[in-house]
């Protein structure tokens, strides 16, 4: 059954759409088109002159070892963030789904981190892990583990991963919990009568039925790790040490605003744009076709 309102004249619908369209045009299409344009230009550092150079920025980009390294770092980082955030969120959702008394309290507390701005989350974790005064570092040192993410690239990566995942757990938790509550109780009961123990029920019934949610979250988490973690990286490691946490979106900022290579930075933005478009298309295609009941 389709129910829709049909407007007789076209003026009102366009008027109603106008604010959103304007915002999209000014803040999305205009910068995007600028990025596309700039990516084929070479501009001097003072912005006084520019030269049209076709795709030289792109070929330079993919010849640059640093950029390829950044790609690698980003892939690793986003995968680590998505896996960590989703695994923990799923575990918490399973536990919260079983809680009967005070469920609202747990849920509310678990959702709070989502309200924290990335930069603030970064500062929080930075203080906890500050090599000279962080309380966690103090504890680690007490058990004989030396922590200094300013020098150790692996530790730096671990720290930004944890910081970024921590914030995303809330978001994933909400979706997993909603997904689980949408599974009819009788399915679980039928499985129990069929002889499946809780662990088996989870893996053979609940988890497969969560597949659409899981897949949606996977894409959302990867997108988050790609783009929204800028604040965290900026606060915690500034992409270092030695580019160990220099993810693509941070490199765009670094090369463009600090390195003043506007053309190269724009080219990087275009690559990122392509990636997000691919992810979105992939998500729609796959969700529509496969993971749906």
């Amino acid at each position, binding site marked *: 059954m389709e129910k829709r309102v049909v407007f007789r004249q076209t003026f009102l619908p366009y008027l109603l759409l106008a604010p959103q369209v304007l915002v999209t045009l000014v803040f999305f299409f205009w910068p995007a088109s600028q990025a596309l344009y700039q990516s084929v230009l070479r501009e001097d550092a003072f912005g006084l002159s520019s030269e049209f150079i076709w795709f030289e920025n792109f070929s330079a980009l993919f010849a640059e070892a640093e950029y390829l390294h950044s790609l690698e770092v980003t892939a690793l980082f986003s995968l680590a963030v998505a896996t960590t955030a989703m695994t923990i969120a799923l575990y918490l959702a399973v536990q919260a789904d079983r809680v009967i008394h005070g469920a609202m309290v747990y849920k509310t507390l678990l959702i709070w981190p989502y309200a924290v701005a990335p930069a603030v989350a970064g500062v929080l974790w930075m203080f906890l892990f500050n090599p000279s005064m962080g309380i966690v570092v103090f504890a680690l040192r007490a058990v004989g583990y030396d922590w200094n993410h300013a020098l150790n690239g692996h530790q730096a990566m671990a720290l930004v991963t944890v910081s970024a995942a921590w914030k995303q757990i809330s978001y994933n938790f909400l979706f997993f919990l909603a997904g689980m509550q949408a599974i009819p109780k*009788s*399915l679980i009961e*039928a*499985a*129990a*009568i*069929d002889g499946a123990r809780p662990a088996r029920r989870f893996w*053979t019934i609940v988890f497969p039925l969560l597949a659409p949610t899981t897949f949606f979250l996977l894409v959302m988490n990867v997108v988050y790790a790609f783009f929204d973690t800028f604040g965290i990286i900026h606060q915690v490691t500034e992409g270092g040490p030695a580019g160990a946490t220099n993810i693509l979106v941070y490199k765009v900022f670094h090369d463009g605003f600090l390195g003043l290579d506007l053309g190269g930075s724009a080219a990087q933005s275009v690559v990122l744009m392509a990636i997000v478009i691919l992810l979105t298309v992939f998500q729609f295609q796959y969700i529509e076709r496969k993971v749906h009941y």
Partner: protein
Amino acid sequence: MAEIRFNKVYKAYGNNEVIHGVDWHIRDGEFVVIVGPSGCGKSTLLRMVAGLEVITSGEIFIGDRLVNDLEPAERDIAMVFQNYALYPHMSVFKNMAYGLKIRGLPKQEIEQRVQKAADILEIGDYLKRSPRQLSGGQRQRVAMGRAIVRQPSVFLFDEPLSNLDAKLRVQMRLEIKKLQEELGITSVYVTHDQIEAMTLGHRLMVLKDGYVEQLGTPIELYERPATSFVAGFIGSPAMSFLDAEIGEDGRQVVFEGGDRLAIAGRLSLDAGSRVTVGLRPEHLVRTEEEADSLHIKVRVVEHLGADTLIHGDFGPGKADLTIRMDGIEQIRTGETLRIKAAPEHIHIFDPETGGRID
């Protein structure tokens, strides 16, 4: 194969007691129906047998085993749910094989059993389909198939037909009955539909607000309802209830307005005691005699083809009274009819407790 015994079974949620002591012995191979209006606790009782609800106090035995503390999986039961509860991400075959796989049966035997169950239920062609590609009736069959392949000692049915349309419900009702007779597996069936209950059950339990109103065969419940609730619940169209007093000699009931009916035997109640008289629509017949008859003013006439239902007002209080007559009767609204009932078909209840008075 197993019998089921309920021994003083209670269920409470916190301080709210919902099942107030059920004692019952279901014999091996018997098909029993728990029937009652929604919220009477019938599903709760079934779910306690299944192990999906904790038994607050009392004991339930399946066969010789006390099952109070056993997991659903250990009770050797199979259940058909109202919404079928088919696993949506599995094919029909996998749905039916799931329980067998968990029990670690060899692949070959799983296939044989599923195939056999599918043949019985005529769903062999759908084994590769997913549940969402099936109609309601087909899903119902798959749910039954999933129960059969397990070869349990007890079948539990939780209102399995209530999501089907009327025609399919009648058809599936017959099939369930036939299947149960063939397999001979002890079955407990929960429904709010008294026709399902009457047609399916060897014996019925009528439940109301968590109390057992009556246990018995469908005929017993129909002929000698223990309470006015059972009397009104069993039988369609429902029994009519009229206020009356016991006559001087205790051998008749006197209605407001002066009409009287002779009753079977003699009641030990004082003359003038208030009673509720129950009359089934199918037991009322037209009469020409003035004595032992009721005067009814016809309000609505319904022609069903096979029979005619007459809804009338009786006495000064205009109490509702339904009469069923065979075939097509030409009766007009507003007409006054004289009707009577055979003494053995007059049910008398206590107006306070609802209990039967003989």
